[in-house]
């Protein structure tokens, strides 16, 4: 279980999230915006009887959001609140045996804040992300 990761992309960067933190991956319908909420909160959406807070990962990282054709989200539960993380594409869950490596390159502040480490998978380098830090949003103003 420890080694199972959900693989997705955010702003074309391949990322991984520990699968045990993920409740489900779903397509959602309309997102109701929340006036006055911080920029990374895209709004609220209903998933059966649950109301999810939808978080735009790009904005949470201080990046410009990209146009999206459909709203596929990663549902996570943090402190009893359900969040839907809007990401670029979602691949699949994969088992990666190797341990995460410390990040030895200098990342942009947004990435650095949410990254836990690096993973090697099929010749690609994945950033291992912490959903809790994504949901917390960015303190810095949006990168211009």
């Amino acid at each position, binding site marked *: 279980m420890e080694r199972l990761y959900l693989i997705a992309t955010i702003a074309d960067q391949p990322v991984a999230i520990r699968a045990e933190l993920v409740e489900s991956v779903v397509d959602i319908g309309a997102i109701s915006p929340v*006036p*006055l909420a911080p920029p990374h909160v895209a709004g609220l959406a209903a998933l*059966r009887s649950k*109301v999810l*807070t939808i978080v735009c990962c790009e904005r949470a990282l201080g990046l410009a959001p990209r146009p999206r054709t459909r709203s596929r989200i990663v549902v996570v539960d943090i402190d009893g609140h359900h969040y839907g993380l809007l990401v670029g594409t979602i691949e699949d869950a994969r088992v990666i045996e190797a341990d995460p490596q410390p990040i030895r390159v200098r990342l942009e502040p947004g990435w650095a804040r949410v990254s836990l480490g690096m993973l090697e998978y099929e010749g690609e380098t994945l950033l291992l992300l912490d959903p809790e830090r994504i949901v917390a949003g960015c303190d810095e103003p949006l990168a211009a």
Partner: protein
Amino acid sequence: MDDLLSEFIAETRETLEALSGEIIAWEADPDDRARLDAIFRFVHTVKGSCGFLDLPRFERLSHAAEDVLSELRAGARRADAGLVSAVLAVIDRIAELTEALESGETLPDGDDALLIAALAQDQAAGPATAQAVSVAANAGPRAPTRSIRVPLELLDRIMSGVSDMVLARNELARRLREMGAETEVGGAFERLSACVAEMRDAITRTRMQRIEKLFSALPRMVRDTSAELGKPVDLEIIGSDVELDREMIELIRDPLTHMIRNSIDHGIEPRDERRRLGKPESGRLCISARQSGNQIVIEIADDGRGIDEARVVAKAVAAGVISQDMADALPPAARAALVFAPGLSTAERVTAISGRGVGMDVVKSNIERIGGTIELDNRPRAGLRTIIRVPLTLTIIAALTVSAGGLSFAVPRGAIEEIVQMSSAMIRVDAVGNARIATIRGRAMPLVDLETVLGMGPVESQQGRTIIVVRAAAACSYALCVAAVHDHEELVIKPASPAIMATGVYAGKSLPDSGVPMLLLDVAGIAARAGVAGEDQATLLPAEEPVAEGPQTVSGLLFRDLAGTVRAIRLAVVERLEDVPAEQIRFTAGQMRVAIGEKLLPLAGFEGEPRGSAVKLLRLSDGAAEIAYAIDEVIDIVALPPIAQRAERAGPVAGVVLVAGEQVELLDPFWLFAELDRDPGSPTKPLCLLADRDDRWTREILRPLVEAAGYRVALAGDVAAEAADVIVAAEAEIDVARPIVRLTPDRSRADGNQIYRYDRAGLLAAIERSTARRA
């Protein structure tokens, strides 16, 4: 084993809560066999359970207590205060051990042996707990109820399952309508639908709990507090069977506890004082709960000394919460309510009981945060009644759905006072700077567009919009303008995620039957964000002119005069309201006058028979002079519209204004002061104020000279410096913008600014010049 242990902990804790009331009742009446049996059963059960769970300390304690209690049951011993305290101490220790057991800590072995020894017979003076608390025996021994324990998570799961079901039903209903299904299918669907609705109601009720859970701990708390303070208290509890949401019970626990401690600590007088006052030696404290509509009303009433309004006002003035002038004008009820102002504690010394750094302002804001209100009914020297109103439940609220900027929001129905169409003839909207004031039937209040507050951009057209008058706090109403108002709906409210709650304008999120998530607005948060000041803040802090006090809307006092006519006067000229005995009013020297203290004021409006022996007076001031106006009663404070019809001739009435569609005569303060404030004895003499009051030369030599020259003379402090036409001073510092004649005893220092004090001609000429310039 773990299951057994957690079962034991839960059960012990539950019985402990239920028991604490019983044990106090038992102390009040040691012969009450039913209660003794209940306590014995508890101790016995603990003993039994902990034997096979291997909990030796529990076993020792419960065994000792059981022995004593069985002696009591056998009649071999009688319960006295010392013994009851000892039993209580053992039960407390069992409670502590239970908590420790659950958290996995170990409690120091300490003085279990001492506690057990205290139970022994012939124990000399037990702990000093001579103060008995009696409980009105209306509770009666509890009848066993058929119930099971269900973990809360399971309830929540059932609740969300039922919500899912409701949504599925709604979708099915939509589909069926689209298909135009046959009647048989429709009938079956109706039945299903009714079942779902009933199920939702039942599940909702599972979250309700009897307020007994909260009240059962009170006898013990009151007993301990009263023992600590040496004030005997009779406690009466009414309405333990009222039900409310379990979360709500937790939220009102602290405010309730605080108010009860306050009652015993500050309200109820010490025993000898009560004896002197002819009150029963034991203070009375009555705590009651009842349901009123969708609110629960909790009252805490004592027969103590009440709130000393004068002292509260003095404190508030000293703390800068309110100015003296404003304080004088406050009605008595508002004076007592000053205890809720932040930074005010009436306790002169901080006591261990109520001086916990938690002020009444915190109690008030905690109650208001959960959508409740708190009021005081103060009877000085006779007692205080605190009335707390809270909604039945936090999780399901009746709400009104509104739309603004293309989105839907819910507004708690409890906060809504009325709904008015923007196009209604009852509404007038005035612009005040960049803010707007809505006047609805004579009541002016700030008008706020929801879209603007939520930063959704300006509203393009006010056409067809709706105003909801909402109450943000007890005395803070404002008009919230939305695009449209839709439905009344019962919504299940859940807390929104922290990032959303941090905006401060939402109270929670909900998923209504439409399936589109909706946010519940926090009307107080919106008021704060829109910069709307409460009426109480507006009256307390006149310096910060709130938006409601625009140039268009002047506040006026609406009253009934002695002839029964409704009249109004600008509020700003009313200094204060006063009741005076009728015999202080006399027709003297060609004018009605009233004697108030050392003052003699001309009186107007005394045109009919006053009711009773006291006359209500408005004391009016133009800044210097003061006159009185007799009235029958004050009706209200209203926003004065412009004069609709001016009076033809100058007189006491300036004209007619329309207040809520009624014609009201508006008094003309100019005419009143001009007519009444004439001093017939010396109508033309200027007033000369001698500033050096304590100087013998001023009093004995200067004063006769000035008086002989035909001036009215006053010494500093006898009249307000502002009222003087000229001030004559030698040494005194003057900081009033009035003509000043400076005197010097030294002839050589006389010049243009100072006059030698024996220069009679120069002195009188200077006074004359100053008064002439003023005239």
